[in-house]
Every structure is written in C-alpha cells, then in structure tokens.
C-alpha cells in the first residue's frame, strides 16, 4: 500500500513534467506579451530590453529548464501583468474555485444519486420519465448558455440573485469564504448550479444504468426471496454495488469541474483560478498560465490517487490482493 502511494507520486512527477513541457511548447503560439506590458509611448529599445529581462529571447529548452528548476524551489515566478508572485495570486484565488467546485460536486452527488436510484427503481414512472428528459437538457446544453439563461431569468428578470461576483467574503487566515454571508451564499447558487448540472445528469444516468444492471442479478433476487425489506435490498445491496464506477467518475469529474470551472467563472465573473487563467491567456501572462496548468495537473494526480484508495474501502475484493502490490493502475 505504502509502496503503491510512493510509486504513484513518482509517476505524478513525470506527468507534471510532461504537462509543463507541453504547456511551454504551446506558449510560443499564444502571442507576444510585451505589447500588453507597456503603453504605446514606450520605445523600441525599452521593449527589447524588456524581452531580454524576461528571458523571452532564450531558446525553448533554456526557458523550460529555468522554469522547472525555479518551480522545484517553490518559486512560481512573477506575474507579468500583476507584477506579483504567482504563488500569492494562486493562494488568493484558489478558495473561490475550490468552494465553487466542491459545492457543485456535492450538489451533483446528493441530487444525482437519489435521482438515479429513483429512476432505476421506477423506470416507468411519470416522474422518472420527467427526470430523464430533463437530464437531456443538462447533458446537451453548453455551460455558458445555461449560465447566461440563469442570469437572465433569476438575475435580470426576477432580480432574486446577484448576476456576478462572489458577494461578501469572510477571511479565515488566508482562506476567503463566501459560505458565511447571505450575499456570499446567494452569489454561489447560480454558478454552482451551472457547474453542477452536467455532472448531476451524468451521475444520475450512470447510477440508473448501474442500478438496472444490479437489480437483475441473482443475489438481489435471492435477497428479495429471503424477505429482506425493499429498503435494505435497494440501498444496502444494490446501491452499494453500483458505487465503484460512480466513485471513479465523481473523482475524475471533480478534477474536470475544477479545470472546467473556467467557463462558469468567466460567465459569472467568479474570481477564481479559472478566471485568472483565462485572463492570463488573453494577456500572455506566461508564469500564471504555467503555474495554473501544473497545479491542475497536480489536482488530477492527487484526485486519482484518492480514488484508487477509495476503491480499497468500497470493494473488499481489492483488499485481498494487496499482497500483489496493487498493480491495477
């Protein structure tokens, strides 16, 4: 088990190096940062001096190597546009993204799983059919469209919810939270629904099909024959056995939610890391882009590790062959 974690961590370093390298390879196609850094009066000599200072004239491998070495020392560099350490900026922006993503995933789980179970059990019921049709909307409409529609309806027409931003936030150490104020919670509603909708429908459909599968198996029939209550059969036996794929998907989706919060954050002007990244792309703020991409890669690696460890908890069969070294990748 311990060896497994170590091996995973070593692999993750390789993954992150690769991500950093690909990212660096792409940066040269994003555009020239210099014009965003200076005004129109700035002289040519000054512009060239700036390029030199930033090391933009160095060959690719030199720039990349320098970045890797600095990052290993914990130095993510200086944002071109903000002229601040990227590390500080990430720390400032991370709470907004994590709060939004985690609330969304929880929402997706706690609404999606019951809906999936329900539609699995009553697959011909009217409500189940309504759920299934509604889920088509969630799975097929693009996120930004859902966001804009919510804004238009609840923000502009009804004026119930704020159309942008995070509301009032409370700082606890370096962590800023919007969960403790009324305006913060109100501001969270529309972005989290927008972000959760796709995951929610995905989980619901997944749980439904897994439930249908499991309910047909012999041990469920046997459990019913033994006279166990419906509740015990449905939740104690059937649902539990559907959970392995659900955990995998939810875990991977948490990574995806954090990464794809970019669109939701842009639509709602949510001051998270995704928004910061998209601005960095527009401004060719290379240190910010690089740090964000590496961080997202790190999130994926950690989440996958946790998912693997959760399998052990849910699936007893895996615990039996721990001796083999857990080589199931």
């Amino acid at each position, binding site marked *: 088990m311990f060896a497994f974690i170590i091996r995973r961590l070593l692999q993750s370093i390789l993954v992150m190096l690769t991500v950093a390298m690909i990212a660096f390879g792409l940066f040269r196609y*994003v*555009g*020239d*940062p*210099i*014009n*965003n*850094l*200076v*005004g*129109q*009066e*700035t*002289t*040519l*000599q*000054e*512009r*060239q001096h*700036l*390029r030199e*200072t*930033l090391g933009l004239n160095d060959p690719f491998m030199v720039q990349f190597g320098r970045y890797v070495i600095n990052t290993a020392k914990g130095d993510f560099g*200086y944002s*071109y*546009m*903000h*002229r*601040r*350490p990227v590390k*500080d900026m990430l720390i*400032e922006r991370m709470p907004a993204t994590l709060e939004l993503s985690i609330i969304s995933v929880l929402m997706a789980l706690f609404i999606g799983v019951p809906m999936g179970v329900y539609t699995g059990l009553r697959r011909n019921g009217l409500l189940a059919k309504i759920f299934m049709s509604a889920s088509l909307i969630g799975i097929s409409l693009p996120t930004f469209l859902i966001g*804009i529609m919510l*804004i*238009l309806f609840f*923000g*502009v027409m009804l*004026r119930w919810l*704020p*159309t*942008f*931003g*995070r509301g*009032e936030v*409370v700082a606890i150490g370096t962590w800023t939270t919007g969960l*403790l*104020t*009324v305006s913060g*919670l109100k501001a969270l509603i529309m972005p989290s629904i927008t972000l959760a909708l796709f995951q929610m429908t995905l989980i619901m459909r997944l749980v439904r099909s897994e439930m249908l599968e499991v309910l047909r198996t012999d041990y469920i029939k046997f459990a019913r024959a033994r006279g166990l209550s419906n509740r015990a059969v449905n939740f104690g036996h059937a649902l539990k056995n559907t959970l392995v794929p659900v955990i995998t998907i939810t875990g991977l989706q948490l990574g995806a939610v954090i990464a794809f919060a970019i669109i939701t954050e*842009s*639509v*709602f*002007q949510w*001051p998270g890391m995704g*928004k910061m990244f*998209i*601005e960095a792309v*527009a*401004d*060719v703020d290379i240190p910010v882009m690089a740090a964000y991409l590496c961080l997202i890669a790190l999130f994926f690696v950690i989440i996958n590790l946790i998912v693997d460890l959760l399998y052990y908890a849910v699936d007893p069969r895996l615990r039996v062959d721990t001796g083999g070294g857990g080589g199931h990748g």
Partner: protein
Amino acid sequence: MRWKSTVIAGALAAATALAAPSVGAKDFKWAFQGNLNSLDPHGLFETFTIGFHGNIYEPLIAYDDNMNVVPALAESFEQTGPNTWRVKMRAGVKFHNGNDLTADDFIFSWERAKTEGSDMKVPAGKIKEIKKIDEMTFDIITPNPNPILPRSLLILYVMDKEWSIEHKTTSATNLKGGEEGNFANLNANGTGPFMVTQHAAGVKTMLKRFDGYWKNVPSNVSNATFTPISQDATRVAALLSGELDLAYPVPVQDWKRLKDAPGVQPLAGPEARTIFLGFDQVRDELLYSNIKGKNPFKDVRVRKAFAHAINVDAIKQKVMRGSSVPAGLMVAPQIGGFASELNAHWAYDTDMSKKLLADAGYPNGFEVTMDCPNDRYVNDEKICQAAAAMLARVGVKVKVLAQTKSKYFGKVLSQNNYDTSFYLLGWTPGTMDAHQAIEPLIACRTKEKGRGLFNLGGYCNERIHKLAPMIESETDQGKRATMIKEVFKIHQDEVGHIPLHQQPLSWGVSDRVTVNQRPDNVLDLRYVVVK
C-alpha cells in the same frame, strides 16, 4: 445545521448593518471590461489604468470634464525661457495619509518614473533636470524647446516622498521585484478625491471619499466600488439587474435593449480614437500577396484605388450601427491640430478605383492578406470583413487574418519586424495633440530617434520627416498649426494610410446617476453624481 447557518447569517447581517455607512451616503458601483492590475501610478502607460489612477493620484495639470487642461497640483506652470518652465505647487494640498504636498514630492515622483520598472520613462524624459527654488517652487529644464510640456506631464502622477520611503517603494513596480512585491502595487496614497480602501486585482477595488480633498468637485459619491467584468453579456446583465450604476463598454448591438429596459440608458459619444488601414510600403515584395517581385503598395495609384473602393458610410451604417464618425484625417476632432477642411474621406467610387488599378498595371486586381485584431477595437473584425468585401468589388482579393490582440500585435509590431502587408489599427494620441499621431504613425521609421514606431507600413515622406521634429519644438501655436496641416495634406495626397472613422464610446448608465463621458473613454469620479 440549518438554524445554525441562519443564526450566523443573521449575526453577520446585523454586523454589516451596524458597519453600514450613515444615511445619505451615496454609493456608486461600476464595471469595466478590463482589470485594474496595479495601483502603481508609474506602472503602465495605458488609458484605462492611468484614467483610474487619476481618481486617486494627481498630476501637475489635469483634464477637466471637457478635456481642457486645468491646473491641478501646480498652481502655476509658466514658460520662462525656451527650455525652462517655472512651476509653483499648490499650497494646502494633503495626501491621503495627511502629509503636505511639496516640491520634493514632484521631484521624487519624476525620479521614480525614470526607474527600471516604470512605463513612464517617455514622459519623464521630457524633463532634463529639475532645479528646486524653494519648498513649493521649482524650475523644469527640458532637453529641447517643448511647447506642449504641460500636456506631456498629464499622466505623471505625484506620490508622497515620505510615504514611499517609509514603505520602501522608491522605484516603480518591477517585473522582477523582490519576493515581497512592491508596496505601491497594492496600496495607494495620493492627493485625489478618492482613497483606496480595498484592492484585489482582477476582483474588486473599493474607494472611499477623501474628506481632505483640496478642490470642490461636483461628485457626491461617498463610496465607489469597481469590478472588472470581462464578458459583455454578464456586464450588460449586471447593469440591467440594477447591481451596477455604470458599465462600459457595452456592445453597440445592445443599445436597443438598454433603451427598452427601465432605469438604464446607453450613453454614446465619439471617441478620440481613429481607426485606419495601413499598407506595407517598404518591402520590395509583399510578404502576403500573389504579386511577386514588386510591391503594389509602393504605387500611390494603388493606395488611392483602395481609398476610393472603401465606403465608410456603409461601414458606419451596417457594421457600426450608425455610431461611428467617418474620417479623412488621422486624428479626431477632439485632438489639438485637427483640421476640419481635410477631414472628408475619399469619395466612394468603384469606377475610379478600377481605373486607378488598371493604370497601375493591375486591371484584374491582386491578392493580399489583411491583419486584423478581433478583440481590440469596436467591431474590428467586422470592419476588416466589410473592407475585404468592398475591395472584392474592384477585383482585389483580401484574405482577412483576424486574431486576438496579443497574437495580432505580436505579429505586426516592431518587435516582430512589422510582419504585415495590409492591416487595421486604431490610435488615440496620448497627449491629445496631433504630434502624438504624426511622430509614431506618419513620420519615417528611424531606429535611433524612435520615430515611426507604429508606422507599421513604413510610410515615409522627406518633407514630413523634416516637419515632425519642428512641430515638436515650435512654440508659436499659429506656425505649429500650419505645419501640422501641411503634414496631414501631404499624407492625405499620398494616401499614407486610409483613415476610416472614429469609433463610438459606448457606456450603459443607470438613471440613478449622471456621469461625464470623456472622449478618451475615461471615467472621472469627480463628475459622478448620484441622485
């Protein structure tokens, strides 16, 4: 759990209510599409940034609501010799921290504007030396006679020397600063009517009225909150929902929506920014064309044919929804040196255009690629597409390469050796004076002098080349205006560029407030009145 969060929320709401400003306090909330990245007044020479800083910091002389220059921190600013100016600082002006304004503060700010990280080196370079006379008076020595020196210093904001020394921010925020960052990047202490109470770059900036401000201004705003909102749809929605009092820019296609909605109005006006087309006139063969071995744009007849082929009125009606002002000059009417008699655009005449092309040896036209930004100016990509369609009618096949501004500028500007054959660009002279259009856009490219830095096509005329430095140093306003006019006349006859129009300013304003819309797209909080 539920009751608990309700209680916490209730307590917090009560706390907020207690902390809320007293009755009568006027709040103002606004949004712009871009970020306020830094509070350092010497960090970035860019209109929005220095415009925003102008609410916190002040220069020696400043723009009023009509963009006339009026004394600000300088009580008087007089030319006492060809290269000498006597400045007397205003008495009784206080910084936000309570310190008094003295001549030392200006001298310090000028020194700071010359440091490594500063983007104000060009305006600071207009001063060779400062001789302090007494605590409130000093002489500015310029490297050469400069009739528009006060205008060049409009964006050189004055910081408090003591405060800067105390917080170790005596040089401008640098790209490679120390690990702690520069104090003035995130904090401010100016003499302006507003103080920064909170600044989170890219998230929110909160301002509070400075009670000790030296001047009476129309504004009655006590607290102002700025939020950057990059998405057009979100910005407009936030205005419509009443969460904002002002949002800018709003897309011109949303004007009708704002007019129809209750409580908000579009506010439009001509911006001082001129949009124009330019051609590569330097290379012996165009980089992006099917004509090999020669450069058609070196022939004035071809350039003239292009000018006659473009229907600026159609662009105004179809692309800009009636909101642009067609132009024939490289500067807008608000700019010093504008000559209305030269401002007519070339007549739209496809027959003349075809004839000119035939005379030049291109009866069947030719192909050329046009570089165009797609997120920099109002409807920029659509203008390029419209121009391409119009040129197709006279046989010129234009392929539009529209890109995001970082890519576009990275391709066409000096640092990439002006990699373009035909392009669209927009320009507002920073000093609101024609010289700031002539020198960077029209004068011949010379590396050592830094002239023609944005003359992307390398247009060059001997006479203009001689006139440009003379305009810079001519102190007789009458003679100067004549020279500027001569430059524009030559440039127009030779079709150095094709000016298209001045683009519109497009703001959305709540009926709750009245604001002053400056032609350079700057919001000055001094003129914001909340009803």
